[in-house]
């Protein structure tokens, strides 16, 4: 499959102009990645937030990383250039995959295609001159790997004008799909607690039903041993999961944060207090 870098000449410039007027964007290609900056809305209204997203399409077999990449790799980073008064929020990371090639290490990330959504907070007032067209730009840097790793980067931009805010039909499906992949808060009544033992943490999930399959993705590096198998013991109302401690963990922690992903089901945000039983 050919992934030729975007050749840009007069034709390209004209296309960009046409695309801008239409509110569309031009994808950029790096050797193993196609990437574009897209908007959920077709226009913006002063005082209302926008949702933008960096859409990655990866060459088959290649992957990028989650906010905690695991034992190797590096997550994508974004440097925004926004119009005055606008502010970018944090990347909303979809639930990751677990990748393990050797006994030494496991990484967390994404294959094929992913949309990293970012909320953009708009100021209450935008001056009339700006309303004709606002430029949102981002310098994206990421590491894409298969057997080898390659740092890639792209300068992306998007122009939006003011107007009635409508969902962009060209991007609606992508944003809806990405939203479904976001970890959600645990349902009301569920509880997550951790007991710290000598070599592992015991994560107890008190849910409203038995859980037979779940994978825990730690948010903070250096707490959990990434490649170690997680043993899950179903209980009548949830599960107990044994998580081997990382060799890097030298001091006790008071909270364990991460994502608990149910295969074929939701992924839950976990922020569990850690108990250290007195020996």
């Amino acid at each position: 499959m050919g992934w030729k870098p975007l050749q840009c000449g007069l034709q390209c410039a004209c296309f960009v102009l046409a695309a801008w007027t239409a509110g569309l964007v031009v994808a950029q290609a790096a050797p193993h990645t196609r990437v574009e900056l897209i908007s959920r809305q077709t226009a913006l209204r002063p005082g209302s937030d926008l949702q933008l997203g960096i859409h990655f399409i990866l060459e088959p077999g290649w992957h990028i990383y989650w906010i905690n990449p695991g034992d190797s790799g590096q997550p994508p980073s974004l440097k925004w250039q926004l119009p005055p008064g606008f502010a970018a929020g944090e990347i909303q990371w979809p639930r990751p995959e677990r990748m393990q090639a050797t006994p030494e290490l496991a990484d967390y990330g994404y294959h094929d295609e992913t949309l990293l959504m970012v909320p953009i907070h708009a100021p209450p007032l935008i001056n009339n001159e700006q309303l004709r067209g606002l430029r949102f730009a981002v310098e994206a840097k990421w590491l894409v790997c298969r057997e080898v790793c390659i740092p890639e980067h792209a300068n992306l931009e998007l122009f939006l004008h003011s107007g009635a805010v409508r969902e962009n039909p060209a991007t609606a499906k992508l944003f809806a799909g990405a939203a479904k992949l976001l970890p959600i808060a645990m349902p009301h009544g569920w509880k997550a607690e951790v007991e710290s033992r000598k070599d592992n943490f015991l994560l107890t999930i008190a849910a409203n039903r038995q859980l037979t399959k779940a994978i825990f993705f730690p948010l903070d590096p250096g707490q959990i041993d990434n490649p170690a198998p997680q043993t899950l013991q179903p209980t009548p109302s949830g599960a107990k999961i044994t998580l081997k401690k990382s060799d890097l963990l030298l001091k006790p922690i008071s909270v364990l944060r991460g994502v608990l992903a149910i295969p074929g089901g939701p992924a839950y945000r976990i922020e569990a207090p850690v108990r250290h039983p007195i020996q």
Partner: protein
Amino acid sequence: MKTFRHLLHACALMALIAPAFAVRVGEPAPGFTAVDSNGRQQRLSDYKSKYVVLEWHNQGCPYTKKHYESGNMQRLQKEWTAKGVVWLTVISSAPGTQGFVTPSQENDYLKTMNAAPTAVLMDPGGSLGHLYGAKTTPHMFIIDPGGMLIYNGAIDDHPTSDQGDIAGSKNYVSTALQEATSGKPVTEPATRPYGCSVKYKD
């Protein structure tokens, strides 16, 4: 007697292929024998009274390149070997993978890059890498003259492939060596190593 020897060999083999041998700071560093890029045998026990740095290396990895193309790694090697520290670069890339080199290719690389390790250990079978649980390139270990592991982790605190980040980074290896050689405890003995995964044999 034969059965016992077989058992011993089996156990030794198990130790090498067992997943993730835990190499923890504050514990004795595992002994090893390896062949260097000049065909000489190198044993950890040869350096009993010295500080030893182990540097996992893959010349094609962007994170290794960050420290070599900037001259940062070579500077560290020169500074610390001049002070009597033994610096062993280790290559655990399997044949056919990124970072794998023949001994003469490695010696050419050392000349071109003006690198100054005490020796480069050729570990294409990955046994030394597995023994230490080396995860990334670079991944740094420091062993004190008593044979204790006193550092395990990243080279510095900016886990990127940008050379521009080196100047503002805290170098964990230098800091640990400075502290240890002046009789102080190492304040950050275990950090998350960053880089490309080590390309082990399947």
